């Protein structure tokens, strides 16, 4: 059990480091929230007066205490899950803002990550099994091509062709303007139609990683003696490919899948941005633009925490999956 103990200690230390880094990073950014707010005003072309600057400073309640006392109250607030009020959404708490965005990202990025994993792995198995043949070339070339697209560019392209040119899907948002999120079937259908384009974009872009990982593992595994033995025994092709080769080749992909699930919370800033999706990625973009420290910190914390927790879980799973670790 020393393995487990070591992992727990490591988890706690990484957690503290992440939390402290999370405190420091936004404060290292150039500019202040006041400057960001003034930049918005100034870009309307009308000169910003000192009176406006003072007014905005008072409105934002910008902290001007020392770093050490800020760090103290920061740690205390994290322990009590009190992230204060964000500058961009002053009428609600940060926790509420994040709570509203979280389900959208969880569903959109979660579903598309799982889809990409399943489709990509199956394609990888197929390509690996038929290695060197035309099917292999089509799959690998195709996924290389799509995987090389920058996600936001692919998103824009889909937006332009499918939403603008042929008006098959809505242009932006997570649901029709004016609707209030609820659990009715109409709203659900509306939300689904809004999430098709961003979802497909995410799947296409993520596909190539899974395809290649799985294909290469398959090729390695197919060279193993037990596969040759299974084939020599006259088992059906599909049985050999799926039950013997694929099952053993899957392990590294499962690890990677765990990690990518941890990354879901961070969403996909660019894709959510292109589609103006009401999720965490978009929220992060807004927070950074507005130098919104409370919101940014809470978001980073949620993202790092979910990543760390997933890594921890994968570590624990390894104990079950790989007998060598238990020693």
């Amino acid at each position: 059990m020393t393995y487990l103990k070591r992992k727990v200690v490591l988890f706690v230390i990484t957690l503290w480091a992440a939390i402290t880094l999370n405190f420091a990073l936004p404060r290292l950014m150039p500019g202040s929230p006041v400057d960001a707010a003034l930049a918005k005003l100034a870009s309307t072309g009308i000169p910003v007066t000192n009176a406006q600057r003072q007014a905005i400073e008072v409105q934002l309640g910008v902290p001007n205490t020392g770093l050490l006392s800020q760090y103290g109250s920061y740690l205390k607030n994290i322990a009590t899950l009190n992230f204060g009020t964000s500058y961009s959404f002053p009428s609600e708490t940060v926790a509420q803002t994040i709570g509203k965005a979280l389900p959208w990202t969880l569903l959109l990025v979660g579903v598309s990550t799982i889809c990409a994993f399943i489709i990509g792995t199956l394609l990888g198995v197929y390509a690996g099994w038929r290695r060197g043949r035309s099917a292999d070339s089509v799959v690998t070339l195709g996924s290389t091509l799509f995987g090389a697209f920058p996600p936001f560019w692919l998103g824009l392209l889909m937006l332009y062709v499918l939403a603008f040119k042929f008006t098959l899907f809505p242009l932006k948002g997570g649901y029709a303007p004016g609707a209030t999120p609820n659990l009715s079937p109409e709203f659900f259908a509306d939300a689904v139609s809004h999430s098709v384009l961003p979802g497909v974009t995410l799947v296409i872009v993520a596909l190539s990683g899974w395809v290649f990982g799985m294909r290469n593992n398959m090729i390695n595994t197919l060279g193993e003696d037990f596969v040759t033995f299974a084939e020599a025994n006259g088992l059906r092709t599909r049985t050999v490919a799926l039950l013997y080769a694929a099952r053993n080749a899957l392990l590294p992909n499962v690890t990677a899948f765990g990690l990518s699930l941890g990354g879901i919370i961070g969403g996909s800033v660019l894709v959510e941005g292109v589609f103006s999706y009401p999720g965490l990625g978009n929220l992060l973009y807004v927070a950074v633009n507005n130098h919104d420290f409370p919101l940014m910190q809470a978001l980073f914390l949620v993202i790092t925490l979910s990543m760390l927790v997933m890594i921890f879980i994968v570590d624990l799973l390894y104990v079950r999956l790989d007998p060598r670790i238990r020693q």
Partner: protein
Amino acid sequence: MRARSYRKSAVVCTVAMLTAVGASSCAGTGSGTAAGGSTGSGATTLTIQGDAGNPALVENFNPMQPSSAMHGVNLIYEPLEIVSPIDGTFTPFLASGYKFTDSKTLVFTIRQGVKWSDGKPFAASDVVFTFNLLKKFPALDGNGVWQHMSAISASGNDVTITFKTPNVPFAGVIAQTPMLPEHVWSSVADPVKFTNTKPIGTGPYTLGTFAPTQYALKKNPGYWQADKIVPSQVLFPAQASNQNTNQLDVSSGKFDWAYNFLPNVKTTYVARDPQHNIYWFPPGGTIGLYLNLTKAPYNDVNFRTGISLSLNRPTIANKAVNGYLGEASMSGLILPNLNKWLDPSLSDQGLVKQDAAAATAAFAKAGFTKQGGKLVGKDGKQASMSIVMPNNFSDWVAAATEVTNELKAIGINATTDLPQYAQYSTQIQSGSFNAAMGGFGGTGSPYTDFNNALNSSFAAPVGTATANNFERFKSPAVDKSLSQLASATDPAAQQAATSQLQQAMFTQTPVVLLYYGGSWGLFSTKAFTGWPSAADPYTLPANYNNSLLTVLTHLKKS
């Protein structure tokens, strides 16, 4: 995004895509009766491209928080008068008129028979209450009215405001302060943080429904000029955080009124519905090259004149704003908006043409001569200039790039410096720059435009921040003209002082004005007509400030 008046939006990746749309005939989908607008027969819905929803709108209808309140607040609360951002003319709203009894005393006569949307009468005491609230909570006083006002009092229907020093043009700022109901706001504990989700105003609309992606205003039947208001409902669907999406949204014809920079607008917008889609891109401000007048050689008027004469302004304007707007007049006035103030003695309306021979002569007077392709000063060093601007103001960057190319051609070692906005703003405010791109004017009031840019009281020493007069121009003569203009109540004296200021601008070149920034109005005449246009320029087509109220009182059913 509110951040988008007359500079064009940063990303224009979709240019090529949108241009390709031109020929395709799919007309814009319904505009007047867009999503969510079913309010029974005879009802007319106006859809305006709304606030930036990032990723959701946050309900705030506090008219004293212009940076976080929803744009629709401008249709709920009214000011005493609205001052045209084009030529500074006053249109009475809650005041039926105003007059200066002397250059320090301003009297507004309050309109009779106006009711708040909860039925209570509007009175002079509400006006006094509103200004006293700004005094009590300086955080609400974003325009700094109490830096100029000394007292306010009401008697009958008259509200009398006294100034600390004569300041006739400041009447415009005071007149445009939105008026609040005393019976509601007197019980608000902290009006600075108040989000006012149940707004009570005198304006033509009241808040209907609010959702995080769209809000609707409905017509106020008790509005004092209700016969002038046509749409029964106004929808404000939230904008995307992404400019490309917004451009596609506008092109697809979702709005009756949008405010968006579009590349190649004839193809990307007009051609999508040639019968109804129109646009008007009037000048909304001037973009200029600010030279630091505390540093040599920029402190030499001959050197500045040389720079001004070396530039080909039409080319710069073309690169910066796609030919939508033209070169700027060195009079300091935005033309044609302020034509009525233009000094007739200025040659060619104050336009400065590129003139290599005259530029060489001016540089020679400043002690700079051309040697082997380089413009060299008396100390034997080549003249140099680093122009600073925020990296995301794409039209400024395009203009500055052309400026540096033209300056390089005459032998000045010109470069651009593209930091983040925050750093740019620190640099120009503290005076630690050689040259900078910047906005000039655009308030509609020649006094305010010139005062901000030229008043020596703003010229803080280098290292001390100032919000105006970044170039640090100091001239007793100009200060005198400014104070004459501030205290002048009769038109002839105002014209005389304004002409002096234009002359100073033209001959001393404190700022090298380059081109006009645009105000990007896109309209559909499918449901409504009467939009502001070159033929009827009653206001700028901005849909995020009190121009909303002006436009709504001009719309007719088509």
